[in-house]
C-alpha cells in the first residue's frame, strides 16, 4: 500500500513540479504583487514600495475605465460568444449534411480565417470598414443603404469587431462540431425517422442532446477566448471611440507594460481570472442541470 503510494507520487512528481514552478508559484507571486504598489519607482529604488492591501482592487473597482472595460468585454463575450457558437453549428450542419457537395472545399474555406494572422486580418478589416473608401460601405452605397462609420461610431465599433471575431473564429469551433456530429450514430436518426420525426425534430431530439458534451467544451473554450479579447481592438481602434472598445486585457497590458504599474496590472489580471472562472463555473452548472 505504502509503496504504491510512493510510486504514485513518483509518477505524479514531474507534473506536480512543473505545475508548481510554472503555475502555482507565479499565481501566488502575482497575487502578492497585486497587494503592493510595485512600479517604476520601485525598480529605481527597492525602498519605494508599499504594501497597500486591497487598495489596487479598490482603486480598480472605483475607476470608471475598469467598468467600461468590463462592460465592453462582457458585451463582446455575450454577443460574440453565442453568435460564434450558432454560426459554427450552422456551418457544421451544412457541411455534415448528406446533400452537401464539395465538403472538403467548404471545410477548408470556412476554416481558412482561423489560420490567418489576427493582426493582418484586423488591418484588412479596418480598410473594409472605412466609412468612405471601405468595401463594405461601397457595397451598401450601391444598394442604396445608409453607410455608417463602423469603427468611428461608438454604438457600432464593438459590433464591427464582433463581426470580425466571429468570422475569424467560427471555423475552429465548426471543426469540433463536425467531429461531434460524426460521432452520432446514424441508427439513431434512422430510428427517429421510423418514429415519424421530421428534420427539425431529429435535430431537436437527437442531434442537440448528443452534442451536449461538445457544446460544453465549445462553450467554455469560446468563453475563455472571448473574455481575453485584445488584438482586434488594439489594432483597429486602440480602445476608441469614447473607450467603447477598451477590453480588460487591453487595460491590463496598458497598465503593466506601458506604464509599468505592475501591482495594479496584477490586480486586473486577478479580476479577469475570477471572471473567467465564474463564466466557466456557470456553464458547468448549466450542463449539470440538464
Amino acid at each position: 500500500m505504502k509503496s504504491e503510494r510512493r510510486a504514485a507520487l513518483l509518477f505524479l512528481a514531474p507534473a506536480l513540479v512543473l505545475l508548481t514552478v510554472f503555475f502555482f508559484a507565479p499565481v501566488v507571486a502575482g497575487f502578492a504583487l497585486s497587494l503592493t504598489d510595485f512600479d517604476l519607482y520601485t525598480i529605481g529604488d527597492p525602498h519605494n514600495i508599499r504594501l497597500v492591501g486591497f487598495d489596487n482592487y479598490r482603486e480598480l473597482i472605483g475607476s470608471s475605465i475598469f467598468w467600461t472595460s468590463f462592460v465592453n468585454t462582457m458585451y463582446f463575450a455575450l454577443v460574440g460568444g453565442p453568435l460564434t457558437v450558432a454560426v459554427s453549428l450552422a456551418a457544421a450542419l451544412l457541411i455534415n449534411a448528406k446533400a452537401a457537395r464539395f465538403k472538403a472545399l467548404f471545410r477548408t474555406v470556412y476554416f481558412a480565417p482561423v489560420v490567418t494572422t489576427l493582426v493582418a486580418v484586423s488591418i484588412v478589416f479596418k480598410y473594409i470598414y472605412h466609412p468612405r473608401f471601405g468595401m463594405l460601405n461601397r457595397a451598401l452605397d450601391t444598394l442604396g443603404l445608409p453607410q455608417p462609420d463602423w469603427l468611428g461610431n461608438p454604438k457600432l465599433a464593438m459590433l464591427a469587431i464582433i463581426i470580425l471575431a466571429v468570422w475569424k473564429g467560427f471555423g475552429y469551433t465548426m471543426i469540433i462540431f463536425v467531429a461531434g456530429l460524426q460521432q452520432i450514430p446514424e441508427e439513431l436518426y434512422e430510428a427517429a425517422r421510423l418514429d415519424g420525426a421530421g428534420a427539425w425534430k431529429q435535430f431537436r431530439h437527437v442531434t442537440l442532446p448528443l452534442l451536449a458534451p461538445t457544446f460544453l467544451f465549445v462553450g467554455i473554450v469560446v468563453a475563455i477566448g472571448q473574455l481575453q479579447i485584445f488584438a482586434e481592438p488594439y489594432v483597429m481602434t486602440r480602445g476608441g471611440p469614447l473607450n467603447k472598445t477598451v477590453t480588460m486585457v487591453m487595460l491590463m497590458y496598458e497598465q503593466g507594460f506601458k506604464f509599468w504599474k505592475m501591482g495594479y496590472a496584477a490586480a486586473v489580471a486577478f479580476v479577469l481570472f475570477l471572471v473567467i472562472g465564474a463564466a466557466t463555473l456557470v456553464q458547468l452548472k448549466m450542463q449539470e442541470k440538464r
Partner: protein
Amino acid sequence: MTRLRWLAIALLVLSCGTRDRGRAGVERIEFWGLGREGEVVAEMIPDFEKRHPEIDVVVQQIPWTAAHEKLLTAHVGNASPDVAQMGNTWIPEFAAMNALDDLNPFVAQSKTLDARDYFPGIWATNVVGGALYGVPWYVDTRVLFYRSDILAAVGYPNGPRTWAEFAEASRRILAEKRCRFAILMPTNEWEPPVVLAMSNGSTLLTPDGTRGAFRQPQFANAFAYYIDLFHRGYAPSVSNAQIANLYQQFAQGEFAMYITGPWNVGEFRRRLPADMQDKWATAPVPARDAQTPSVSMAGGSSLVVFRASLHKEAARKLIEFLSEPAQQVRFFEVTGDLPARRSAWTAPALVAEPRFPAFRTQLESVRPLPQVPEWEQIATAIYDRGEAAARGTTSVAAAVAELDHRADLLLEKRRWIVSRKRGRS
C-alpha cells in the same frame, strides 16, 4: 559515436566563433537603435570602427512599437545595452528607475560636444534633477501643415499666426465651402491641446510635478479654445484609427490644416500627388496673440548610456561620433530626421526644402513636457477628456477638473517619494 563527437566539436568551435570574433584587444559595445534609425545607424558604424579599431559596435535594431517595453525589461532584467537611442520623453522614466548614466562630466570635457550648439528646449528634456541623462540625436516638434492654396484664398498665404487668425481662417474656409473641415486634430492625439496650452503659458503640472495644473486659466482657456474648434465644426471629432488615408484626404480637400511633426514632410512629398506639391506649406503653430511667441513641444530622440554598462568610455566615443555635425547631416539625408545641432542645419538638403524653416523657427521656442514618469498616463487622460468634451458628453469645466483629479491620483506615489526625500534631508 565518432560522428557525434565531431558534431560536438564543430558546435563548440562555432559557439566560440560567434561569442568572440578572435580579435584581441577589441572592446565590444552594444547599441540599440529604434526602427528605421536603427537600420541607418548600422550603415554608419563601419566609419566609426575605422576610426576606432579598438571598438566593435554591435547594433540591435528594435521596432518602435516594442522599444519602450524592451528597454524597460532589459534594464529590469540586467540585460541593458551599453548605449541606446531613446525617445527623450522617456528619459524621466528611466531616470526614476536609476537606469542611466549622468553624462555631465563627459560633455564638460568633450572636445566636440558643445551644449550651446543645441536647441535649448530640446537639451532641457535630457536634464532631470540637474543630471544630464542623454545627448540629443535628432529633434522633433509639432508645427502647422496647411494647404497654401486654400489658406491664400481666405487671406492667410503664410498661414495663421495667432489663435484669432487660426479661428478666422477656419471660419472662412467653411463659410466659403473650400473644405469639408478646416483643421484635422485627431481626438486620440494629446499633442494639439498640449501645444496650445503651452503657447498660453501653461506648465501642465505644478513646478515640482506633484499635482495637475489643468484648472489654472493658462490650461483651461487653451482647452476651451481647442474644444470650441470642434463645436464650431472646424475640426471633425475623429480619431486616428478612423483616418484610412490621411494624404488622400488632405489632397482631396477634406481639411486644410493639420498639426503634425517633421516625418510628415517626407510623407507629404512622397504621397501627395504631383499637382499638390506646390500647394502645401508649414508654419509655426499659432501663438496665442501677436505679443506672445509660438510655443511647441520638444520631442525627438537622445543617445543614452546605461549605468550598468562596463564600456562607458567606448559608448561615449560612439555618442561623440554620432553627434558630429557631418554625421548629423548624413543621418538627416538618409532618415529625414531633423538634426539636433544648429551647425548641421546649413546642410544643402535642409536648406533646399522650403518646409523646414518653420521647424527651425519653432525649435528655438520649444519646451519640454513635464518631466515625470507619469506624464504619458496624464497625456492619455488629456485626449480622453478632450475627446469627451469635443463630442459634447462633458463640459470644459468638468473636463479640466477631472484632469486635475486624475493627475493628482496618478502622482500620489510621486508626492509620497518627494515628501519622504524632504523628510530625510
